[in-house]
């Protein structure tokens, strides 16, 4: 898998049987749909359709990145209720992308969520980084 930001091969990190793609240059993380599916199965999350995080689009001025799988520009979505973090989501549901900055925000503070599934996904990421 190629990093959507720097176009370099990403390394794969495996934690609790879940694999994430991680770019050693820009420190962004790709959470692939297959792994999300596996993660949901393990933690008992009922996935709604092909979008694990089913949140409305956010129109941001941030640069659009291409999905590393289907190479289509990804959508921006916001997670968190009071504190907002913008992350990228593939239009076709191939996975989620967390920039370095987004990742730091996710890791450094717990972001209050209305949605339990999103909370579980973010806390899993927090475990690793």
């Amino acid at each position, binding site marked *: 898998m190629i990093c959507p930001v720097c176009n*370099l*091969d*990403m*390394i*794969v*990190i*495996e*934690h609790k*049987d879940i*694999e994430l793609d*991680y770019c*050693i240059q820009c*420190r962004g993380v790709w959470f692939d749909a*297959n792994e999300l599916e*596996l993660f949901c199965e*393990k933690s008992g999350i009922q996935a709604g359709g092909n979008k694990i995080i089913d949140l409305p689009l956010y129109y941001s001025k941030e640069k659009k990145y291409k999905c590393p799988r289907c190479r289509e520009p990804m959508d921006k979505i916001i997670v968190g209720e009071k504190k907002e973090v913008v992350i990228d989501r593939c239009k076709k549901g191939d996975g989620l992308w967390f920039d370095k900055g987004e990742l730091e925000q996710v890791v450094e503070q717990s972001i209050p969520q209305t949605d339990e599934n999103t909370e579980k996904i973010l806390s899993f990421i927090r475990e*690793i*980084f």
Partner: protein
Amino acid sequence: MWEQISANRRNSAFLVVLMAGLLFVIGYLFGEVFIGYGGGIFGLFIAFILWIFLILTSYFGGDNIFLAISGAREIQKKDHPILFNIVEEMTIAAGLPKVPRVFIIDDDAPNAFATGRTREVAAVAVTSGLLERLNRDELQGVIAHELAHINNRDTLYMIMVGVMMGAIVLLADIGVRSLFYGGRRSRSSRSGGGQAELVIFLIAIILMILAPIIAQLIYFAISRKREYLADASAAVFTRYPEGLASALEKISNSSLKLSSATKATAPMYIVNPLAMKNNKISDLTSTHPPISERVKILRSMAGGAGFTNYEDAYKRITGRPVGVIPFSTLKDSKDVLIKEPSKEDKTKKEKQREIRDLIWKVNDYKIMDCECGIKLKIPPSLLGKKIQCPKCLRIYNAIE
């Protein structure tokens, strides 16, 4: 099986001749138009060389071309012992002289195909999604079905048709392009351009009409009969029709689409990867009989797993008076007892992780265990660089 095998040989030879005829006509016309009066002979000569080249490539390299198109990577016994074990067992059951090469396609959509010009030079390819989803008995059913195709020489015919199809599509493309670009030039510089334009236009049109007909030929190539025959052989080889039946069900129920499948390669697969689910019209024209019917036949094989049992089940389910198994095969058919199902000892998750690790390995990733409990998998392009574990921040030199 001899009827089927000789029919396949005859069809392959017919295709070679057809291809020659087509290329010679096109070559002659191209020569006449572009070089002028008498140039047709030269065109014919070029066409002859092209024909020889095509035949040699399809015969000696066709299998590798298909494997390359589908993104298949060869694996060794140590990479996936269970899969190899099954292939070896089925090689013996099918009576093939040599164990085929085994390939893996990194794709979550479950599917499989076989290719090869002879029973000695053959290969079988399965997707990682197939290995993740199927248990041992089901996998055995699929492999047996594929080896039956090799044994019946279906694969040689498939290669010939596929390469021919590719060549015709390419020529039609060249025709259309030269029409497009050549058309502009001739209007300004040459006065005789109009005629040349017309001829190329005609050829392009003919080729464009021919291409789908050739595609239809592929559809006949792996015709429904061949699929039924391979299913019947799989039941005999495995002595367990339920294995293939439930494998077919699992493959057709998956909503994932095989990303590397093209129109030319689709008929090779055990279940047509391009067929849409719940599409009634596709059933009429499809290369493969409806999956539900294949499953029903396999499931209603009563009393044994032999060819006679399959023939009876086929007649009962489809209601057709004429069966699919060649007469000589039925005559020599022996009673085959259905065996007990094998026990499964691995969970789905274990299997899934095992397959993923295999995919990393065939793609030359280096797998390292960090002391903090995290596994790092490094792509070949990053070997030799310093890599920091994101969790515990230890720094590694990934050397290979």
